């Protein structure tokens, strides 16, 4: 079986599956259960200065798919609501008991050098492996000048990162908020401040839904609500993009990334690693299924790596980065068209109506003598948009097939249809 051993920002772990700073890593009891279940590391739920935060009752809400599975998860919980001292003593004990597993401690204190200096020293004394700076919490804490309020100002990100590096010998991971317009600015600031790594994404400002009887968003706290932070499978595409932006940015190239955002299975993890992530952090999947879910994640990843001949994570890490590029570099001469396999078609007509109503009228509905319909792609009209393939409920029934494969690569930069094209190359 492939070797899942991970070294991330100098931190050793038996595997890349870490639990993100969140309710599952709030205290020793949970963290020890996680290690027992096989998680490679844990980012301890964010510590702050005393007095500890106080949470409201009714904290989570979710969005669901048609079968009732959670696709998006929202929370309005604050950082730890237990005292700093209790947390530190538990961290110390857990690390002693579990020396092989990564234990990173998430931190959030006011933007004052002394506050950061004091807390990083205290954490260092516990024997923890690293620090994660929570610059991303989108709810509650920003109202007090912390969390996303820091992460949204690159200068402050750089400043706080620098303080932590100055006062601690531990690796510093800066956790980034996605609630910005361009993730690269905060990643660059973290790097400039000396960060050993970044982790992303933190949760996205969200309202998951409205209770139409009470006319209030969820979760409901005595008839009122507030925006929360969104995570779970629904945010994975946003997280993957932000990871790729940082992985591709020459200014942050090579900066270790811990990928976070909707990772629910081995495939999700492999995708983050393919885009350059050195470890992945999971929360929602564990909150929905319990810690045992890591068993299938590790097994699936190992078997897939075996099937591809990858012996260690580094063998495929970042392989998708170079293939993620700007639109202008895409090949204008590449052409695919849809093909419908009559043998596997079940005749639901979804491809037809989606193309007919909303796309290019490139599928013909051919009534058959038995009253059924046969669906056929009109290649001349097909632009290769993939919509039919997406709406088809049968896997591999509609495939996209290449046409005119003999044409040379042509980017928009040189395409003669581009009025601003570069000539002479």
């Amino acid at each position: 079986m492939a070797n899942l051993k991970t070294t991330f920002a100098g931190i050793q772990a038996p595997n890349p599956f870490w639990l993100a700073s969140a309710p599952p890593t709030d205290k020793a009891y949970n963290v020890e259960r996680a290690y027992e279940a096989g998680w490679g590391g844990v980012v301890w739920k964010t510590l702050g200065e005393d007095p500890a935060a106080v949470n409201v009752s009714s904290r989570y809400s979710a969005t669901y798919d048609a079968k009732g599975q959670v696709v998006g998860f929202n929370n309005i919980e604050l950082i730890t609501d237990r005292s700093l001292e209790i947390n530190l003593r538990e961290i110390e004990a857990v690390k002693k008991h579990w020396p092989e597993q990564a234990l990173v401690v998430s931190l959030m204190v006011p933007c004052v050098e002394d506050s950061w200096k004091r807390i990083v020293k205290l954490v260092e004394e516990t024997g923890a492996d690293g620090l994660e700076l929570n610059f991303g919490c989108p709810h509650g804490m920003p109202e007090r000048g912390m969390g996303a309020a820091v992460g949204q100002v690159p200068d402050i990100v750089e400043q706080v990162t620098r303080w932590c590096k100055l006062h601690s010998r531990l690796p510093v991971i800066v956790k980034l908020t996605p609630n910005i317009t361009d993730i690269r600015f905060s990643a660059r600031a973290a790097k400039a401040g000396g960060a050993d790594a970044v982790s992303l994404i933190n949760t996205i400002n969200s309202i998951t839904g409205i209770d139409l009887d009470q006319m209030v968003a969820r979760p409901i706290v005595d008839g009122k609500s507030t925006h929360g932070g969104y995570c779970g499978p629904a945010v994975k595409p946003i997280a993957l993009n932000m990871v790729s932006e940082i992985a591709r940015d020459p200014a942050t190239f090579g900066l270790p990334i811990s990928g976070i955002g909707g990772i629910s299975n081995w495939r999700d993890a492999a995708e983050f690693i393919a885009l350059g992530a050195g470890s992945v952090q999971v929360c929602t999947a564990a909150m929905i299924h319990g810690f045992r879910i890591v068993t299938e994640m590790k097994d699936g990843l190992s078997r897939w790596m075996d099937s591809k001949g990858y012996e260690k994570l580094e063998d495929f890490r970042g392989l998708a980065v170079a293939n993620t590029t700007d639109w202008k570099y895409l090949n204008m001469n590449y052409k695919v068209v849809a093909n419908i396999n009559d043998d596997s078609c079940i005749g639901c007509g979804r491809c037809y109506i989606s193309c007919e109503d909303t796309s290019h009228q490139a599928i013909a509905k051919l009534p058959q003598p038995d009253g059924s319909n046969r669906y056929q792609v009109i290649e001349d009209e097909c632009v290769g948009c993939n919509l039919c393939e997406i709406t088809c409920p049968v896997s591999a029934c509609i495939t996209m097939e290449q046409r005119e494969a003999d044409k040379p690569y042509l980017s928009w930069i040189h395409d003669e249809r581009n009025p601003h094209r570069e000539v002479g190359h």
Partner: protein
Amino acid sequence: MSLQPPLISISPTRELNELFSDIHPPLTPRQAELESARCLYCYDAPCVKACPSEIDIPSFINAIHHDNIEGAAQTIYSSNILGGTCARVCPTEILCEQSCVRNKEAECAPVLIGLLQRYATDHAQFEGHPFSREPDTGKRIAIVGAGPAGLSCAHRLSMKGHQVEIFEAHEKAGGLNEYGIARYKMTHDFAAKEVDFILGLGGITLHTGTALGRDVSLVDLQAEFDAVFLAIGLQGTRHLMLDNEDLDSVQNAVDYIRELRQASDLCELDVPKRAVVIGAGNTAIDIACQLKRLGSEDVTLVYRRGAESMSATGHEQAIAKAHEVQIKTWSKPERLLVDEAGMLMGMEFRSTTLDQGELIDLDTTYSIHCDAVFKAVGQTLVLPENETDLLSQVKSGKLVVNSEFQTAIPKVYAGGDCTAIGQDLTVEAVQQGKRAAEAIHSSLILADKA
């Protein structure tokens, strides 16, 4: 959904009545939520094409999934006002569910459309009737027969603003829904409630215990009304043409089912220890299974051809097997065996086979001991007494109508099982009643404009 196991040993009334609870339990809200998610919302959906009453199935299932139960029910009722009955009695396995795209080899598991339809119609709560009547047209239409075809026609005509009067020979409306459907398929007083629901639209007057030919005449109806719709069903039964067929212990299956459906205490029913059922349709299956549930020890269903020719669907045959009903094929009724006192002892059959496509008798015979024989060899059209005009409208045992459901008698239309259109299914009768109403409406409006 598994079939209920065969239940044999019974005695007290309470238990016996429980044996006639729903053969397919209704879906729970959770099951409905999950099952509705399986619908792919097909375009030009095969299930809709397979539904004789053209219900927009993807639309009502989508509405169920998004917790719009009244919207779902309204979609069903707008195509089929007896959607509640059809959800229970339709042979979905040869209609919508057979054509469901999820039935293809890769999945072999159609969306449970019938049960979802039942969920919507059972749970919808309307304030008043879900449909309204158009302004009164001043037209009056007589409908003969308050079965599915007559009720469907009446409802649609009333919606169009016409005044409708229904003449029903029996004491209760509902036709086969009330008197002929297996008790475990339609439980309690569902048929009566459905009639009330349909009449709730208004504009429909029901005269029960009023038979055509006895209490009213077609000539009078023609004179008094702007149109007449005959939905008289099939009131007769075929005979075996054997000696001793008039014995009390040789009965029509439909008569026994009627008694069973109407019985307030099932313990009062005469239950034979050993019974033979002749026939191969759904009525034969219904009587055989119900006899088993009532406590008959041996029930043998005998059919003169092979299982593949039985008109009962595979699903129905499976229900019979689950009830431990013996099915004997390739056997033709030969004699009713009677002892010296004139009591039925059993029945003798002659083996048959196919010879170049022809069913022929073989030399071998055998007999089955039984205390009762139930005939389920088909129902026939019986014209109301004194209505000789109708005789000319009968061809091959059914009333003849054109594509607009018109007979050759002026102003007289017909639909449902009494005509030769389509199969004799409840859902077909509903559709014909609905379409006949549209045809009657068009012709009346056209006549006004002319």
